[in-house]
């Protein structure tokens, strides 16, 4: 039998005030104001919010829904549909291993396994110190340099498991003292 989860028990409905009574942060409003009234802008808005905050905070999605008039359910449905959107804060470094065909044929999964083991996290998880989030990406389009790893916006080609860990180790070395 599968475990069945009762996520929200019936509780007395009691109006406690508008959860969004506080005005939205100014930098969020700056993004929202630029797209006010544009019915084709929702995904772009979410991309900008993510670019600014590195993920999509729930409250910000609510502000976006209220300010721009898109139903929150639609905003949430989109945030969970597309791969790029993250609803939880990622680590300082988002390590993405390409799993495109060329990378696959060139054993990118070995690199993924190696990093996963070394970092002690699975795919889509973040290390406890908040430094690294390990992810995969469908294809970066740099197939001739397969296998490819991307850290934030920097692409690394012709990787091997050891080489990829070497690069991460350097980041660890520069970051750890600050942690």
């Amino acid at each position: 039998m599968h475990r069945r989860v009762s996520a929200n028990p019936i509780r007395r409905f009691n109006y406690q005030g508008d959860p969004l009574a506080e005005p939205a942060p100014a930098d969020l409003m700056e993004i929202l104001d630029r797209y006010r009234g544009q019915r084709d802008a929702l995904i772009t808005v979410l991309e900008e919010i993510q670019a600014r905050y590195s993920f999509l905070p729930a409250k910000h999605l609510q502000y976006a829904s209220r300010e721009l008039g898109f139903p929150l359910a639609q905003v949430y449905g989109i945030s969970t549909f597309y791969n790029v959107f993250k609803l939880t804060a990622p680590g300082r470094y988002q390590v993405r291993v390409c799993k495109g065909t060329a990378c696959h044929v060139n054993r990118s999964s070995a690199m993924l396994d190696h990093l996963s083991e070394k970092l002690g996290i699975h795919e889509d998880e973040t290390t406890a110190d908040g430094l690294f989030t390990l992810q995969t990406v469908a294809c970066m389009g740099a197939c001739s340099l397969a296998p490819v790893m991307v850290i934030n916006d920097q692409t690394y080609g012709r990787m091997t498991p050891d080489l990829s860990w070497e690069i991460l180790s350097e980041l660890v070395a520069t970051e750890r003292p600050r942690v």
Partner: protein
Amino acid sequence: MSTVIRIGTSTCGQAAGAESVVSAVNAYVDRRQVPVTVQRTGCLGACHNEPLVEVTDNDVAVLYGPVSPERVSLVLDRHFGGGGGRWVDPSWILSRRPDHDDFPFLARQTKVTTRLCGVIDPMSLDDYLANGGYMALRDALRMPPEKVIAAVKDSRLRGRGGAGFSTGTKWEITRRQPASPKFLICNADEGDPGAFMNRTMIEGDPHRVLEGMLIAAWAIGASKGYLYVRAEYPLAVKALRNAIRQAAEYGVTGKNILGSGLDFEFVIKEGAGAFVCGEETALMHSIEGQRGTPSMRPPYPSVAGLWGYPTNINNVESFASIPSILLHGPAWFAALGTEQSGGTKAFALTGAVRASGLVEVPLGTPLRTLVEEIGGGCKSDRPVKAVQLGGPSGGCVPAELLDTRIDYEDLRRTGAIMGSGGMVVVDDTTCMVDFARYFLTFTQDESCGKCVPCRVGTRKMLGILTKICHGQGTHQDLERLTRLCETVRTGSLCGLGTTAPNPVLTTMRYFEREYVAHVDAGLCPAGICSMRPGTSTRAA
């Protein structure tokens, strides 16, 4: 004429370290005070030799690669003297332009849509104009739209997204719709793993795509064009933004373009990472700010697309072909190809092949030419086992069918498809069952979940393939798999589902013995599958 040093700095170049090469070249130039122009270009296509540096001196261009920062001094010393007698390794010298005779990777290609990729600075409108940019648009705007459409039809250009529908006919249908406004979409959501044609074209020559769209806008009567680009392609987005800004300054977007009465604006939409958005109805939902799930057709986008208005969707390569058709004439373009299909097709040639990268060949070219002559065979010196075309929607063509011509109909006959241009060569160290399983992992992951055959069917197909890869498969599983392939193929709502079985069907058709070996003998002939129950193989 002064000396020009060109360095490929598109995504592939950067991944290979092109930025440090640029720094090294600049440092060299500063140090030596030599009179040169250092230019960043897109990708010449020879990605396997990245970083690429080309030095043009007295009309002779010498292409070097791979050029690591350490090699910069050596290479440049060859041109500017000095270096104390150190010699450049001859293998770094790839070719000499204009004919590239000594470099089959480039010499055997026919570059139309990628002609300026790696040659011009993609951020420079002047470079594009100096190479005949926006001439085709000027010509087109002087023609009645019907004549433009006729030219495109005569060119026998067919949709380069892979479906192969006549581009001119599609334009004509959209033009004929009474409703307005009309929209134009350029599909640059290159989602196939192992494909980078669109990325290379946009990063290397963004104005060509815009010009193609502007001509289409004139022909169709569209007023707004969306460029739907993958968010994973930040450099392409940057190049496009820059190009759109330049186009506005130059006066080829906005109101009354070049006095023709055409009003047109570009909007860039960054795809948020969903393979299914390559399907046109899903793509439109995505632009509308919806979940990118496909809808049933009809109505086709040409009739009722974005927000219900007529919408013409073409991919990057189709649009990029347009300026050449207008400039050189439809007959020239048609003559490049076969009886049914005109022009050239670009492929992302990758995998086990020796020389990989972006290649463009006339339609009708045999596969063998790409694999053996351009690609130079397998880098492992092992025999080619198969060529996988069209990514997760496509199929495998076995080595014995390498003489198949690259053409929509010929490829379909093998069970594969033209696709958008992904071409992965594998040698005999690849397990075809695992390979099929890899693609199923992808499609299963990317299924939007709207229709059952795809949502659950691909999941079950993957489950059966995994069993087989674990040595737990039976002959019943193979039969079940075959039946399920048929259900998913005929029953799915959109192209993602209907083509998802292709990798399985083609590998079962050409490499049945490998499947049987997994099932009967419990062994993987290529030695890839671990065949241990309960352990995941590497695509998991």
